[in-house]
């Protein structure tokens, strides 16, 4: 399975060569980018097929896991990994310069790395790379607004990176290791205290900058309001989800204490309230979507804060739904930018675009039987299952957010479909944007008819992602699991709600010890 590294290496290779190639032929650079992304999709697809529900750790450079860097492949990692080149291909900056192609390729590589990496510092490197690539892409549009937004994003992002690094430093000073699986074995002993919690808080805020978490999302409306719909879709749909995925990995593996999840729940709730209220007040369509994206990401954080499988199922459902819907909405808003009031009657005559808009809006609000409904239902059920006061408050927030979402999205719809004319169109939607949005719509409608298989698939994925023992066994082998078990027995009295520790151990079918140069192959669940 070592070939999966190609999904990170090839876009970097192509990205490095693109500016030079683009000097002689822009078309060649573009085709190189498309070809590379297609190969990445193929690589990850083959990996998905071969993995077949199991988990594998790849030791990069052949150095055995606690010393070298590992990539950890499970269904969740590969699903998000596969989404990266696919969405980069669909949202490719067609009118861009070779530099923009190069940055998009670098962004693809780093986002794939965020999905796959199993080493906390390696994740930091990919997170920084994602940031560096997005600065250029955001500012590259050349307008003053975009550059101002990019500067703001740069400052917030830099602050976030410092906090993230501080958190990683604390974790390293406490444990002496950076490997996530190794950290999972050491965490019950060395990070179950206020300092450990502070480390999690720092990492949460740091990763929250790209995950649009509550206090550090000030860049969102400006950036999404000033960049092209394709880039906004890529950042809001994809990059934010990968930041969340990293948070979830850290939470599940290293910070099982309930306070960590509660912190995430509270910040997520604040994000929902702030985002949805701001979206309700917004007078510009793109900014409305940007604020709504903050609210949706708040729901994602709230959902993932529910311990165990239930939370991961709900979080994955909300995240995947938003990953599908929001980029499509940004594509549709490309021609309907600007003040909402100015769009009076804009939807009339463009029935495909309007129909898609209605579909996505309804799913975002959560009208049954559209997938958005099931995602929110899972979240609310998960929270109610917890039974604590804070969780009830979270469930109420999600439901109240639904009402607010319905209010502003229907208001926007009624403006778009209003009878009075007076709207001067800047031209019809570009064909390709419509095709991409239709594709998302088809997937959305198709998933209504496949709810059961989808639900089962999500459950299996979540079970795998919540399986801390399985993660450790895959990366480090069976001995490490036994060691963690002993430590947890001592600690479980203090924290009975410890995540994942009570899960039955899966069956380890083949474990090749740790020889340098061979991947450790782990449990199939």
């Amino acid at each position: 399975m070592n070939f999966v590294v190609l999904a990170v290496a090839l876009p970097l290779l192509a990205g490095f060569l693109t500016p030079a190639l683009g000097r002689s032929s822009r078309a060649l650079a573009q085709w190189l980018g498309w070809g590379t992304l297609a190969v990445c999709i193929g690589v990850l697809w083959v990996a998905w097929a071969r993995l077949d529900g199991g988990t594998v750790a790849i030791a990069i450079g052949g150095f055995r896991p606690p010393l070298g860097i590992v990539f950890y492949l499970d269904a969740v990692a590969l699903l998000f990994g596969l989404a990266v080149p696919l969405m980069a291909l669909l949202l490719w900056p067609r009118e861009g310069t070779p530099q923009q192609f190069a940055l998009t390729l670098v962004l693809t590589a780093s986002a794939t790395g965020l999905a796959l990496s199993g080493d906390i510092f390696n994740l930091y490197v990919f997170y920084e790379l994602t940031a560096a690539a997005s600065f250029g892409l955001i500012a590259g549009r050349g307008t003053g607004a975009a550059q101002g937004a990019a500067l703001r994003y740069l400052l917030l992002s830099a602050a976030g990176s410092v906090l993230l690094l501080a958190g990683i430093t604390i974790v390293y000073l406490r444990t002496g290791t950076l490997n996530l699986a190794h950290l999972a074995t050491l965490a019950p002993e060395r990070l179950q205290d206020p300092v450990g919690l502070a480390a999690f808080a720092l990492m949460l805020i740091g990763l929250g900058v790209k995950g649009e978490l509550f206090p550090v999302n000030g860049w969102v409306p400006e950036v999404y309001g000033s960049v092209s719909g394709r880039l906004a879709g890529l950042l809001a749909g994809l990059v934010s989800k990968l930041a969340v995925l990293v948070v979830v990995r850290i939470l599940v593996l290293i910070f099982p204490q309930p306070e960590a999840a509660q912190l995430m729940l509270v910040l997520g709730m604040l994000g929902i309230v702030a985002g949805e209220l701001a979206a309700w007040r917004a007078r510009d369509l793109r900014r409305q979507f940007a604020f709504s994206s903050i609210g949706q990401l708040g729901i994602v954080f709230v959902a993932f804060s529910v311990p165990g499988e239930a939370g991961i199922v709900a979080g994955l459902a909300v995240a995947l739904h938003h990953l599908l819907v929001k980029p499509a909405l940004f594509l549709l808003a490309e021609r309907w930018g600007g003040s909402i009031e100015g769009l009076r009657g804009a939807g009339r005559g463009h029935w495909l675009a309007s129909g898609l808009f209605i579909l996505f809006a309804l799913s975002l609000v959560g009208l049954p039987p559209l997938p958005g409904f099931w995602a929110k239902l899972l979240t609310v059920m998960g929270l109610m299952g917890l039974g604590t006061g804070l969780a009830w408050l979270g469930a109420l927030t999600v439901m109240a957010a639904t009402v607010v979402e319905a209010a502003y999205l229907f208001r926007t719809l009624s403006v778009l479909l209003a009878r009075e004319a007076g709207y001067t169109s800047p031209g019809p939607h570009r064909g390709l944007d419509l095709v991409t949005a239709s594709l998302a719509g088809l997937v959305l409608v198709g998933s209504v008819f496949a709810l059961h298989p989808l639900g089962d698939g999500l459950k299996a994925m979540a079970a795998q992602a919540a399986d801390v023992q399985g993660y450790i066994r895959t990366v480090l082998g069976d001995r490490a699991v036994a060691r963690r078990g002993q430590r947890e027995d001592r600690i479980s009295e203090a924290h009975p709600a410890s995540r994942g520790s009570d899960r039955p151990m899966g069956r380890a079918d083949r474990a090749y010890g740790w020889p340098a140069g061979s991947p450790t192959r782990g449990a199939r669940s």
Partner: protein
Amino acid sequence: MRNFTSLLFAGGLGFFLLVLAADLPVGAAPMVAGEGILGQGPEAVGAANLVTAVVLAYRGIDTLGELSILFAAAAGVGLILSGMRRRADQRPDPEGGFILLAAADLLFPLLVIVGLYIVLHGHLTPGGGFQGGVILAAAFFLPLLGRPGDSLNHAVVNWVEGLAGGAFVLIGLWALAVKGDFLAPMLGKGALGSLFSAGTLPLLYIAVGLKVGAEIAGLMSTLQETEAAEP
């Protein structure tokens, strides 16, 4: 008021971090992964400079990521500034004085030699591709300080950085094809401490040095051309 709040927030954050730091074994972290690398590093990788063994072998993909960060930053700056280049009718800054011009000419070969030395000995002594690359960049940028009218050939710069970055990835892919592990050290370890030792690590550092040098020199040159375009 706003300044005061910011100050209060920054002060609070600083206090928070200090309290955390007071509770941590700063400078004396538990040597878990570190111990392992110290134990088997020289034997497994063959680099006399163990830091290089970590940077290029154990955590080679981190270094590839860091190279890419620099690349993305340089490409981003190029993208932003591409619309602000000096127009033909604008005069650049006046040429530097005798001392600057003579020093630039004198230092150029010395800087190139020092830079290459540091790049080539990265696996033996402190230094390596990043440090040597910056010195190489300085060598090529210094003459431009003296003669602001000149500029680097950006096509050449792009090709050097592209091919050097490509070489780093290709060496990694070569290891993937032959040994089955991306970026695994190849070519035998040689005698510890000699110039031709540590397998592919020196080759990786040459790629890093060239890429960093080309990137920083190109970046500085772009910045200088843009600066001259300001009224």
